[in-house]
Structure formats: C-alpha cells, structure tokens
C-alpha cells in the first residue's frame, strides 16, 4: 500500500497535534461547567424551597402552589407527611416529582432542604414546613440545567478551533513542503538537462543545506558536461589528413580547456608512468591517461592541475576517454598517411606503365604513319590505327584510377561537336559501316574538355561498330534546354544491332562488364570511363530509349550559342 503523501502526513500530524489538546480541553471545560451549573441550580432551588417553606402556612391548596410557581418559575408540589400529594402547580414538564424521601422530611424539620434528581431529568428541592418533624413538604422542581444552551456555543468554539487548526496546519505544512517541492522541480529540470537550474538557498537549516548541496551537484554536473562537450568535439574540425601533430595539438587544447590544466603534453610512443604521481596538498599536481586502443597503448596525455583543483574519478574517466579518442585519431591519421603513400605509389606505378607502353607506341605509330605516307601501303594504315587503339586502352586504364580518386579536372575549351564526331570516326578507320551524322547543333559550341569528349565519342562509336552488326552508325546532335533553362548539347550515338536487354541497362556502365557472354574483346572499361569523364565535365551519359532494334547512348554537355562577336 502506498503511504500518504508527505504533505498529507505533515498536515495530519499538525492537525492531530492541535486537535487532541483542544478536544481534551473542551471536554474538561464542559465537565466543569456542567458541574458548576448543576451546583448553582441546586443551591438556588434549595434556597427558594426553604424560602417558600418559611412563607407557607397550612393553606396548602392549588392556588398557593400556583402563586409560588409564578414567583419562582418552577413546578411546585405539596406533600403531606406521608408523602401524599396535596396540590401541584404542574411542573411545566407535566411531571410530578416523586414523593420526598424520608430523609428529606427529617431534614426539613431543621429548616434545611433536600435535593433529588429524577430519572426524568428533573431537579427537585424538598423543604419541610412546620415541625420538626415536618408536617408538610414543599417540592420545587425544575428541569436539570446541564445546559444545551451552554453546549451550543461550546461546540461552535470547538468547530472554529478545529477549522483554524486545519487551516494553520495546511499553511504551515505548505511552507515546510515548499522548499522540498522546489528542490524536486529543480531536480526534474536537472534530469531534463537544464544544468543551470538552481534552488534558492533561503535558510541555514537542513533544507537550506540540502538546496546548497544540490546547487553544488548541479554546478559540478554542468562543469563535467562542458568538459565532456569539449572532449567529444576535440577532433571534430579535423580530417585524417590533418596529420598526427594536428591531432595531438587539438587534444592538448581540448584538455586544457576541459580540465583547466596549467600545462598539458601529449607523448607518443611512451606509455604513462606505472605509478600515478603523488598529490601533495597545496602543490600543483599531475594527472595522466594512456592513449589506449584496445590492448595497445600509443602514448600518454599528461596535464598539470593547480593546487586548488579537485580531481575525481569522473575527471579521470573523462581524461581517459580523451586518451582513447586521441589514440583512435592518431591511428586513423597514420593509416591515412600510409594509404596516401600507397596511392601515390600506385599512381607512380601507373604513370610508369603508361609511359613505358605509350613511348614505344608513339614510335610505332610515328614510323608507320611516315611509311604509310611514303609508300601508300594500306597495311601500314592498319598498324597506325591499331597502335592508336592500344594507346587509348592504356589511357583508359589511367583514367579509371583518376575517376576513382576524383582528381579529374577538365580543361574546358569550346568546339563544334560535329567536326569532333567526324574526326573520331576517321580515327577509327572503319570502312565497312557508314556514319549518318545529323548535326542539329549548328550555331552551338560544346564547352568541355576536347580530349575527353573525343575519348567519349570514340568509345561510343567503337561500341556501336562492335555491337552494331555492320549496320550504319547514326549520330544525332541537338541543343536541348534543361530544367534550369540552360542549353545542353545532346549527342546520341545509335547502332542497329541487337540492342541491350532492359535488365542490363544499368549494368552496361559498370566496369569490366561485357554484356555478350564469352566476349573478351574490348576492355570492358569504355562505357564506364565515358560516363566518368562526362560527369566530370558536368554532363550526363545514359542509355536512351529507341524505337526498333539497336542501342542508343546519349550524353549531354554544357553548350554555348555562337551568337555575335
């Protein structure tokens, strides 16, 4: 079962503390009042009875009873010595008092009176007339005056007291609870991440101390949070190529900022001291964490703290985190350097391969060309063409690595596409197919890298010849406005071969892909390199939709209108 809320319990406690004595006191007062009222009534009634007895003669009839009743405001009854009722005024309550006890008759003889209380709530005073022993007894009766009249105001006072007690205890309870609920709200905000939340310290008691220690906790948390932010952001602006030294410098900066070190150093290749340095009170002291990567320790980070600074387990953990981060960053930087070195080696190798292949090809082509011019021998023309083809394939290999590395930079020039297509066609030297060039781009120049576009067109024409089944190769040029309103020059190369199956459409551009199984002709690089080059020039290359058999490739390039000078 849940216990009552603290506020309710406090209220109840205070209320109980107030109500119990009030109740007890009220009862006591009631008793005393009751007693004294009863006594007074008895005294008065007894005196009146004696007075009445003294005044009465022997004429004890109803009129005398009524007269005395009118004088005293009580019921009056006369008894004879045997206790028989002689006359009665009626008591006002309709009751007739009981016959006087024997003792009262005896007492009455001495001029006194006897008091009796009836079970019907009457107080009766008996006094003897004549005697002693008394000949007659007069009885004055009155309802007992235990006062409902007194009870009502008393009850009102009691209720008012209770209400006041309840109100006071609520108010007091609230003032006691308020600092606690403020503390709770602040803790809630703290939990929600608001480390600036402070509880006002209003007193020097337990509550005040609780508030103050909470505020210290919040400040410590905020400080540690700031340190954590600094540590976690330490290497954010750096990329792996920044180098190991930059990472160490960044770690030193971050550590100084996060922990308030007066001096900080990163040592690589040197694990931290086995025993942590001793802290001498009043002196600056050193703390240190390893640059750990799994089981490996790459070095240590060490900082000097001012004597006033505390250094807790949590601070040490945070420094350790910085050490781990730095170790990761250092390892990444080292790997990056190694990779860059390897990439440079690979490029150096490819440059060498390219040079060693292109140099003899240059001679072969040069001499064959010279001889072809001199002798007109067709076979020498074939040597020229084939050596050129080989050169292009070698160049493609080099281009692939540059596309991969993203280091391609076009040397943009302006040129008419039609002339370039014709020249590329001639360099293929293919006599068996026809070129059908539909130049719809007169008045426009392509703005791109001339050599690259020549490679692209050459690859597309070569492809169309290879897979076109000997049919004519169609090339269509057209300026087309793109979505942004700029004009692009579209070049479409179409063959009339079997075409490309829908499921192969994207695969056609993947490297080393040959769509015809068993084919080993070609490098499988042509389309992939062509697409890479076109994209590096800000264009696109795609497989166009065609009607009828055959495949059509289209590429777009930035275009310039010739216009006026």
């Amino acid at each position, binding site marked *: 079962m849940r216990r009552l809320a603290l506020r309710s319990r406090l209220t109840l406690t205070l209320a109980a503390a107030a109500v119990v004595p009030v109740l007890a006191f009220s009862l006591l007062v009631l008793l005393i009042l009751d007693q004294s009222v009863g006594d007074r009534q008895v005294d008065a009634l007894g005196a009146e009875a004696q007075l009445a007895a003294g005044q009465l003669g022997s004429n004890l009839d109803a009129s005398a009873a009524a007269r005395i009743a009118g004088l005293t405001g009580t019921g009056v009854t006369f008894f004879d010595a045997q206790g028989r009722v002689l006359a009665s005024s009626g008591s006002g309550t309709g009751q007739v008092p009981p016959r006087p006890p024997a003792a009262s008759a005896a007492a009455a003889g001495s001029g006194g009176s006897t008091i009796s209380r009836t079970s019907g709530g009457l107080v009766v005073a008996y006094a003897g007339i004549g005697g002693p022993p008394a000949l007659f007894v007069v009885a004055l009766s009155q309802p007992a005056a235990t006062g409902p009249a007194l009870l009502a105001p008393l009850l009102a006072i009691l209720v008012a007291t209770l209400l006041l007690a309840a109100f006071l205890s609520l108010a007091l309870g609230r003032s006691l609870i308020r600092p606690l609920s403020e503390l709770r709200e602040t803790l809630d905000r703290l939990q929600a991440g608001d480390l600036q939340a402070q509880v006002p310290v209003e007193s020097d008691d337990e509550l005040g101390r609780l508030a103050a220690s909470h505020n210290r906790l919040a400040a410590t948390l905020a400080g540690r949070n700031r340190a954590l932010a600094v540590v976690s952001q330490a290497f954010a602006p750096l990329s792996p190529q920044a180098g190991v030294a930059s990472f160490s410098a960044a770690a030193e900066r971050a550590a100084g900022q996060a922990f308030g070190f007066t001096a900080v150093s990163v040592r690589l290749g040197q694990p931290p001291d086995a025993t942590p340095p001793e802290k001498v009170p009043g002196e600056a002291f050193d703390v240190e964490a390893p640059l750990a990567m799994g089981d490996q320790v790459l070095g240590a980070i060490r900082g000097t703290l001012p004597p006033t600074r505390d250094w807790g387990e949590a601070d040490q953990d945070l420094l350790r985190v910085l050490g781990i981060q730095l170790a990761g960053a250092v390892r990444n930087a080292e790997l990056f350097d190694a990779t860059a070195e390897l990439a440079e080696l690979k490029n150096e190798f490819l*440059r060498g391969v390219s040079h060693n292949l292109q140099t003899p090809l*240059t*001679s072969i082509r*040069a001499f064959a060309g010279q001889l072809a011019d001199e002798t007109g021998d067709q076979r020498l023309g074939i040597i020229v063409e084939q050596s050129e083809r080989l050169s292009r394939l070698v160049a493609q290999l*080099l281009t692939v690595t540059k596309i991969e590395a993203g280091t391609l930079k076009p040397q943009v020039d*302006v040129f008419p596409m039609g002339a370039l297509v014709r020249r590329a066609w001639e360099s293929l030297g293919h006599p068996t197919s026809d070129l059908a060039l539909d130049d719809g781009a007169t008045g426009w*120049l392509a703005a791109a890298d001339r050599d690259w576009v020549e490679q692209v067109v050459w690859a597309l024409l070569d492809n169309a010849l290879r897979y076109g089944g000997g049919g004519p190769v169609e090339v269509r040029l057209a300026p087309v406005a793109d979505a942004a309103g700029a004009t692009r020059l579209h070049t479409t190369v179409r063959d009339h071969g079997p075409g490309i199956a829908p499921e192969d459409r994207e695969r056609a551009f993947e490297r080393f892909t040959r769509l015809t199984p068993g084919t080993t002709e070609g490098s499988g690089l042509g389309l992939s390199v062509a697409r890479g080059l076109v994209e590096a020039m800000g264009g696109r290359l795609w497989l166009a939709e065609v009607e009828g058999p055959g495949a059509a490739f289209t590429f777009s390039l930035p275009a*310039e209108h010739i216009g006026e*000078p």
Partner: protein
Amino acid sequence: MNAPGPTRILLVDDDPNLLVFLAGQLRSDGFEVHTARDGQEALRRLEGAWPDLLLIDLLMPRLDGLSLARQVKARADLPIIVLSAIDAGDSKAEALEEVAEDYITKPFHYPELRARITRVLRRVGDRVPSGQLDLGGGVVLDLQRRRLLVDDQEVRLTPVESRLLYALAAHLDTVVSTETLLARGWSDTEAPDPSYVWVTMRRLRRKLERDPDAPVYLETVRGVGYRLNRATAG
C-alpha cells in the same frame, strides 16, 4: 629577337626511336635539332648553347622532366613544351603548368606538335609582366599561375583562356585582331573558327567582368577584334 638562322630546338627523350623520328621530322621542317637522352645530358648540352625552344619528356631516368624544366626556368625564360604519356588532370601535369608553356600527350600526331611549336614560338615575342598585372577595380591577372584574382577571390583560367589573355595583356590598351587571337588560342586545332574566339571571350567576361553585358576590361572592337583595358578610376 631570335638569333638569325633556323630556330634551334633541344629535344630530350629517353626513347631513342622517338628521338630519331622527331628529329627527322623537325629537321625536314627547317629546325636545327639537338637531342639528349636524359635530363643530365640535357643540362650538359645547355651549358654549350641555349636553344630557342626545349622539347622534353616528363618521365626520364636520372633527372625527370619537371626537375629539368625548373632548373632551366630558374636560369632563363626559355620556352618549354613537355611531351608526356600522362594527361591533364594529373597532379604532375598541374605542377608542370607553372614551368612549361605547353604540353602534349603521347601518343600524338606530329602535325599537332608542329602546331604547338609554332604557337609557342609566336608567343615568345609577347612579353607581359612576369608577376601579377593589376587591371584596377579589384581585378588582377596572374597569368604565370593561370588564374585571375577578382576581389582577392581566385578564379581559375583554362589554358585557352590564359593564352588569349596573355596575348591581350601583352598589348594592353591596344586592339588585338580576332585572327591573332585565334592563332594564339587554337593553332593546333583543325580548321579553327572565329566563333571560338567570340564564345571564349564571352566566357571570359563572365569570369572577370562585374556586368558581362557591359564589359569594362574586355572590350569588343567591332569588325577588328578585342582590347584589354584597365578599369578607369572612379
């Protein structure tokens, strides 16, 4: 400016076959040709006599083309054309642009090389300040490094653009004919057309003019050609 007699070319390549072929072709075109097999040999030959033009291979044993070109340029402003099996876009080729006037990718057609030689030799007559040329109004030409500075922002120039600006800057405030510009920019291209100059000028204006439609620096002189101006003060 050139010494009387044929233009002298020093050809440096480690492929003896290419040396023989190129030397033969160049001689038959009227050049005086000397050859060297590597960079060291080239430096020894240069101690004897300075040629008018240097044709060097980029990859050579002992002293590679780039180092050779740097050593030569440190001593004299000798025009250099680099023959290489690597093409533009390669980091080496970029480094080369600062020291060589031009380069040609192997394998090449001899007529293409011949056209580039002609173009480079033609440019030898042009002299622009070797440093930067301040055109005023926040535009600075830095042709040695093939770039413009517009309000201190670097704008890269393509080889053709820098060749045209070079020709215009050599004749600052003077009209340069469209034909001259065409020859400076495209002499190695088959059937060059004046429209290349028009379009390239328009592209250049987009790079250096505040308002390309109201040019201040690159002025069209109708029916003749173009003129490079400084911005007038104010």
